[in-house]
């Protein structure tokens, strides 16, 4: 398609699903993720969130753009950096916050924590603490999806593209024509290690070609670009034409986990990506499409209030009582 993404956004805005108002909703969801992550960071530093947590601030356009192309009963599987995956798919923010805080009202009753959120009611098959686990989970969900008229999406990082799961499951999905979209959130670092130094060939999207699979490399900070690529891939999957690999290039604002200061990233690189904050890019384009600063401010306030209520509710909830909810090893 000709033209820049901005030009296309203007051209398409009268099409169903492409109106500025609908993108304002998606912007709101991105801001929901951003504010959620900021709150989790604040609560972590206060000792309310335990163990460790991996924040996805800076990467919001990817899950929101991809999930905007899905139906509610489609499946997604996410990573340990998965709060954005969950919120984009529809997980309730208060239940998610309560899970981070280990409360009994958490989406998994406090059993899962930050890394392993599962919300089957919203089609979130799970988030996986093992790098690459999401790829397998989504591959399996796609086997069911193929029989149910649904689609499955695997979110994973650049690090996972070197894991056995990646290679085995891409091959498998292509062999069986599964209705599956592989979404690589390439934020250029696997934990503390630059992607370039451990990824033979230097690129991820291109790996699909070795499996005869369609792929696309996408500006992961451009919500419109992510959605466009996702619609294409999801349409292909739903039409029985097999899987696609989307490499969405993006950047995480925080360090890998805990209070990792991320000293392994060059300051000029960090600044370059912060200047392309997906929330700022989205706001700018919404204004360009004719929305007003007031429209944006109003949406910001609504989201902030929603997050405040969610965090307040989570903090007020009780911890699970081991005597009352011991848990069973097996389903009877």
């Amino acid at each position, binding site marked *: 398609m000709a033209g820049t993404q901005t030009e296309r956004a203007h051209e398409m805005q009268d099409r169903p699903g492409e109106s500025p108002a609908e993108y304002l909703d998606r912007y709101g969801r991105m801001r929901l993720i951003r504010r959620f992550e900021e709150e989790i960071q604040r609560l972590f530093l206060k000792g309310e969130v335990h163990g460790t947590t991996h924040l996805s601030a800076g990467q919001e356009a990817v899950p929101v753009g991809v999930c905007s192309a899905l139906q509610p009963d489609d499946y997604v*599987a996410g990573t340990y950096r998965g709060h954005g995956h969950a919120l984009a798919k529809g997980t309730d923010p208060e239940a998610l916050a309560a899970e981070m805080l280990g409360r009994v009202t958490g989406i*998994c009753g406090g059993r899962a924590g930050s890394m*392993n959120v599962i919300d089957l009611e919203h089609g979130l098959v799970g988030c996986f603490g093992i790098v690459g686990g999401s790829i*397998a989970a989504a591959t399996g969900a796609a086997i069911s999806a193929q029989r*149910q008229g649904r689609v499955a999406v695997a979110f994973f990082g650049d690090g996972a593209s070197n894991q056995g799961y990646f290679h085995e499951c891409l091959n498998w999905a292509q062999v069986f024509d599964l209705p599956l979209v592989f979404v690589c959130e390439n934020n250029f670092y696997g934990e503390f290690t630059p992607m370039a130094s451990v990824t033979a060939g230097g690129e991820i999207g291109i790996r699909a070609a070795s499996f005869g699979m369609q792929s696309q490399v996408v500006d992961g900070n451009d919500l419109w670009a992510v959605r466009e690529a996702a619609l294409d891939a999801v349409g292909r999957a739903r039409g029985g034409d097999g899987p696609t690999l989307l490499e969405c290039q993006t950047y995480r604002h925080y360090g890998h986990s805990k209070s990792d200061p991320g000293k392994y990233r060059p300051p000029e690189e960090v600044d370059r990506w912060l200047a392309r904050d997906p929330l700022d890019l989205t706001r700018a384009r919404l204004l360009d499409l004719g929305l007003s600063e007031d429209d944006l401010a109003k949406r910001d306030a609504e989201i902030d209030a929603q997050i405040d209520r969610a965090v307040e509710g989570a903090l007020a909830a009780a911890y699970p009582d081991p005597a009352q909810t011991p848990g069973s090893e097996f389903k009877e």
Partner: protein
Amino acid sequence: MSELEFRKAIRDALDEEIARDPSVVFFGEDVAAAGGVFMTTPGLHEKHGQDRVFDTPISELAMAGAAFGAAVTGLRPVIEIMFGDFMALPMDSLVNQSAKYWYVSNEQASVPLVVRSAVGAGGRFGAMHSQIHGTWFQSIPGIKVVGPSSPADAKGLLKSAIRDDNPVIFLEHKRLYSMKGPEPTEETVPLGKAAVVREGADVTIVSALRGVKDSLDAAEQLAGDGVDAEVVDIRSLRPLDHETVLGSVAKTNRLLIVEEGARVGGWAGNLLGIVAAEGLEELDDAWIVATEDTPAPYSPTLEDAWLPGPAEIAAAVRERLGVAAAS
């Protein structure tokens, strides 16, 4: 009286469960078109079609992961990991995904999948095709581990495993595939329960899989020596039915556990420890017969010395009890 071959019992259980429940699917390497390397699954692909029975790439990790993802989204997969020795490959999915999901999800969904494998030594297949992986999974909460010792149990246990809503590892000893035995009297055999397969008064011999047959043969020899052995088929490593064993030991006061596997880290030591902790006052004696502490060797003389067979089991009992051989 008609007899059922073990491999046919496996096939019949799969055939009947696939026909009974449209959500059951079966896949693995060379299980469909070829009917399985041990000829356990011929004809299933032709009868039920590509949607229900299909061959996969050599991708054990993807296979287990795909089975997990399918199992939590509406299907009931049965997969074959051809040899138990290959189970190290899909370990992450089985241990970190399937075993943990019911609990970690706060019971949003369970994982109704079955992983069948051919296991065990004695076939001269060498170190990487002769292991029994039951103990690799016995300590993982959330996963069941079972294995039959007879054709009737093979059919009933596999049916139960497929109907169970939890992940089940199913151990098929490769030296049982040609065994013939009585047809089942019940449709299903419960998971998690041991069985007394020979009643006796002097010593309780507990074993599993092929070891049960070997223990029964040893019991016949011992009967001629004036020793009346009770033989228990443990049938399930997780859950582990120590209560049936305790009941037997309350009668015999002597416990011998025969395991095809190394002594340290084996299920025999685990069972003995639990029985001792629960019923020490019933025990006059408790010991283990295990394989040598090396990988399984290839050459017949080496492998036969490595494996405890009926003669070795009987000799171990006679020696321990201070009984001379009758002949």
